[in-house]
């Protein structure tokens, strides 16, 4: 109902959404992490999941590539439900890149080694081909000169850019970002957000869990506000940031010092 108003939602009205979450539920012991969440993500769209900590955003993102299992509900990728078994999930994961809050670069490999690891060991690409592509990607994220550095020698922002390059090396159709800037020093947040913005401009489909409201507002096409495992409201950035319908959304945004 809300989604049909503002019209700058890419792909809508076209065919099938790229990712569909339908009534996703997840419980950790007695804690309801997700209590029936439904979202559509269209091709080429940047969907930002925002909301207070513990609201289920990351859990939902991790269900998308099966790092977390859901108790019930259905996630469809290009109209097909995600496979239930591990091996089926492996092929789905190859189509989705994931960027973690703590980067999770492999500390025993160089930046180049990290970026090559997917193509080499999952796709079985020849070494020179993998290396050439990895160098291209490092250049793209502005770190060609750090190819032979180990993660410990890089700043947080540089590590996260390498992590983005590592995910892109698998040529994914969708990129998942799990609070990519939350562990960064303020001065390096910008360089990571710039890379993400560039990706968005190139038309990458992105699902981003973030606390960066400026990024969500400027780069996001669709904003989903979550709290306590449920969606408070979803809409275009204009709708959510300029005219939030729900009191809980207003509270959350004003808590972050968002003034519109």
């Amino acid at each position, binding site marked *: 109902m809300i989604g049909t108003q503002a019209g700058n939602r890419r792909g809508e009205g076209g065919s099938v959404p790229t990712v569909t979450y339908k009534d996703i539920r997840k419980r950790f012991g007695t804690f309801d992490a997700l209590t029936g969440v439904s979202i559509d993500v269209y091709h080429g769209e940047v969907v930002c999941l925002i909301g207070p900590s513990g609201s289920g955003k990351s859990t939902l993102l991790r269900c998308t590539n099966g*790092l977390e299992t859901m108790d019930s509900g259905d996630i469809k990728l290009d109209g097909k439900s995600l496979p239930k078994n591990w091996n089926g999930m492996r092929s789905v994961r190859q189509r989705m890149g994931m960027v973690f809050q703590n980067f999770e670069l492999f500390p025993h490999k160089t930046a180049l080694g990290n970026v090559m690891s997917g193509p080499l060991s999952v796709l079985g690409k020849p070494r020179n081909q993998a290396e050439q592509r990895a160098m291209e990607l490092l250049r793209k994220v502005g770190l060609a000169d750090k190819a032979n550095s180990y993660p410990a020698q890089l700043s947080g922002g540089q590590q996260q850019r390498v992590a983005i390059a590592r995910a892109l090396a698998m040529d994914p159709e969708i990129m998942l970002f799990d609070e990519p800037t939350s562990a960064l020093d303020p001065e390096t947040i910008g360089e990571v957000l710039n890379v993400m913005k560039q990706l968005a401009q190139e038309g990458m489909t992105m699902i981003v869990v973030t606390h960066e409201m400026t990024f969500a507002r400027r780069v996001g096409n669709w904003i989903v506000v979550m709290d306590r495992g449920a969606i408070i409201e979803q809409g275009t950035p204009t709708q959510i940031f300029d005219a939030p319908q729900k009191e809980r959304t207003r509270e959350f945004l004003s808590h972050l010092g968002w003034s519109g």
Partner: protein
Amino acid sequence: MSYDWSVVWRNADVLWEGTKITVFLTVTTMVVAVPGGILLALMRLSRIKVLKAASVTFVEFFRNLPLILVIYTAYYILPVATGLRFSPITTAIVALSLNVSAYNGETFRAGIASIRKGQSEAGYALGMSRTRAMFEIVLPQAIRRVLPVLASTWVSLFKDTSLVSVISVGDLAFESMRVRSQTFRILEMLTAMAVIYWLLGYPQAKLVDWINKRSRVTE
């Protein structure tokens, strides 16, 4: 009481042979017990219950028995029970390897457990299988992390090999004791033995310290 240190020089060749056996036992045991320990750790972390149980049983059994008992058992009981007869030195390597593999198994298990879950998840997110993520991502980091522990196991092993002298393996301890019983020069031979063990052991211990210091700055 007068001392006759010439007994040491006169038997230098025997002591040298014994020293070579001691070093050989240490190296060979570790060559068996490092892969053995990794295998035990992987079995322990496996989702297949039988493998898990086998690993736990093995580790708890051999970790909690005195090494000398394992050596005696391997030497006297095993041939009778199995019909297999090994040379004393092979028996010694088997007994030492069983013991040290059990220790290494625990070491590697702890090392693997110390690697953040996010590391294997990053591998899975790229589409890696569990095995691939274990061997390419988790294990290399775990091995680096437990290097100091392995190094001190090595130094303990070097000294513990002296226990195999009870089954007539001609290591440094055995040869020293033999010269002693032939010449009755107990103080001279014990001193010689101590000096040789110490001179070989001290650099190893220093090496352990160095590895400890170096491996502190990872991640």
